[in-house]
């Protein structure tokens, strides 16, 4: 019989296959953040690449995994999602497999960003960066599961999915200090940021890419990533069970 890993691989490879068959869209979206970096970094003070690059990697992974539910919406309407729900595939595998399909290309993109930025003085620690990606993956699996749940909830009203997705993603990003540091902001903003699990993930990424592996930032990121994944997977499985 199958295992959770095998089930996840089944879902993941099913999702990824059409992309690999028609890779242009994904290549295009992988290059986008490079353009963003090229136009944005000249505006930043010297040496801010070190601070900025991990944020960009988090941002593109976040955007991608928040889209997990968008393809699902279509499959809910046509009937193929229902067909998959009747198979013995483990429910978390349906969530994780779909989220991974969004996340894995972003990791390829992260490698590309790091490779492009290295000649411009971006230093990174390989072990730290890999651990950073593990934390990021956990967080983004949670976010993907949330996006999946959102798609289930909006199956009869597609606008709901897009409205909620757009409404949530920007505050989440800004309140995590991805693009601009929070440290100089007012107290209420800092308080909100401390309640945002993504803040801990972003801090961990910065520490880990810089090689500061055994730090409290790493620990915070691990906890935030694992907790987000656990809570959202649980909620997603429940939503699948109760969805009409």
């Amino acid at each position, binding site marked *: *019989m*199958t295992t959770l890993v*095998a*089930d996840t691989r*089944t879902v993941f*490879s*099913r999702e990824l*296959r*059409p992309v690999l*068959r028609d890779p242009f869209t994904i290549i295009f979206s992988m290059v986008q953040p490079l353009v963003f970096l090229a136009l944005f970094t000249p505006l930043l003070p010297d040496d801010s690449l070190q601070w900025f690059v991990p944020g960009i990697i988090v941002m593109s992974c976040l955007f991608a995994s928040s889209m997990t539910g968008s*393809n699902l919406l*279509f*499959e809910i*309407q*046509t*009937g*193929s999602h*229902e*067909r*998959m*729900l*009747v*198979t*013995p*595939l*483990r429910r978390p595998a349906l969530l994780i497999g779909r989220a991974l399909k969004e996340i894995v290309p972003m990791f390829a993109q992260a490698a590309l960003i790091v490779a492009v930025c290295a000649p411009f003085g971006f230093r990174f620690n390989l072990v730290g960066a890999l651990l950073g990606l593990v934390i990021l993956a956990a967080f983004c699996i949670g976010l993907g599961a949330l996006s999946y749940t959102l798609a289930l909830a909006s199956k009869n009203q597609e606008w709901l999915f897009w409205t909620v997705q757009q409404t949530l993603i920007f505050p989440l990003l800004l309140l995590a200090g991805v693009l601009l540091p929070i440290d100089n902001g007012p107290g209420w903003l800092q308080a909100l940021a401390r309640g945002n699990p993504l803040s801990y993930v972003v801090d961990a990424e910065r520490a880990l890419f810089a090689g500061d592996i055994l730090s409290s930032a790493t620990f915070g990121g691990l906890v935030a990533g694992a907790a987000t994944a656990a809570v959202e997977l649980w909620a997603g499985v429940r939503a699948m*069970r*109760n*969805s*009409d």
Partner: protein
Amino acid sequence: MMETYGLTKHFKDVRAVDGIDLNVAPGELVALLGPNGAGKSTTLRMLTTLIPPTSGTARVAGFDVVRQQREVRMRIGYIGQGNGAGHSQRGRDELISQGRAYGLGVRSARARAATLIESLGLGEVADRRVSSLSGGQRRRLDIAMGLIHEPGLLFLDEPSTGLDPQNRANLQEHILDLRARHETTIVLTTHYLDEADSMAERVIVIDHGRIIADDTPAQLKAEHVGDRIILGFDHETDAASAAAAVARFDPERQDTRLTIRTQGAPRRVPEILDDLRTLGNPATEVEVVRPTLDDVFLKLTGRSLREGGTADSRELVEV
């Protein structure tokens, strides 16, 4: 193979399924018949673990559909009313990943996919994007997906909708063959009455979420409608005197026609015609109308299920 007790599903104030008790024995082929919105799909969706019942219980393939979902899922196949194959996928890929989902190894999933592609005539389209297939081709692909793991119990929700007559016949043959070879238990819904009539040995009529009849097609027809013999005469007076001659059958007269309701009409016709001839009042035209399931349906629900082109078993005999 399957038992339900008081199976019920309410969506807000819609009583989609309203207390269904159903027992299906291994190897049976059961057709659920009912008008749009009767609750057929909702029933199948509860039996296949897709939605939890509001109340009541169901055991499918020996397991409870709420508490033992994975056990149920491993033992059943389901071909839903929509398209099982993802539109951005290719047919063969979908078949293989469906096989993998049921725990087949890569090689056996490939081999099964190839066999089904062949037997459902999908060879030319299996490696194209699903969105480019015709409705009927897509439907056949869905059916192939439902069969990939050779389930012992198969649920089909309107499997033949969208197929042309040839493919419909082909599908019926496939289903009957599956049953003959593997003793698969089959529960299907259909709007094609002739299909239910010719394939299923048990027809369950559902209306407003309840079972209103459950029997063999022959028994349903005999019990609820019966045969009719329609006799035609040249003049109303002839018809009237003929009515007196066959009074024991309690005929109804309408102008120059007499209608007799009886069981086993074809066996009675010679006797009746002889009687009339002996009395010097022969019928000039005779028609035997055997009931269709649609007549049963009309009788039970007051509505017709018939779509254009459904076969009708009228035999007109000139005397």
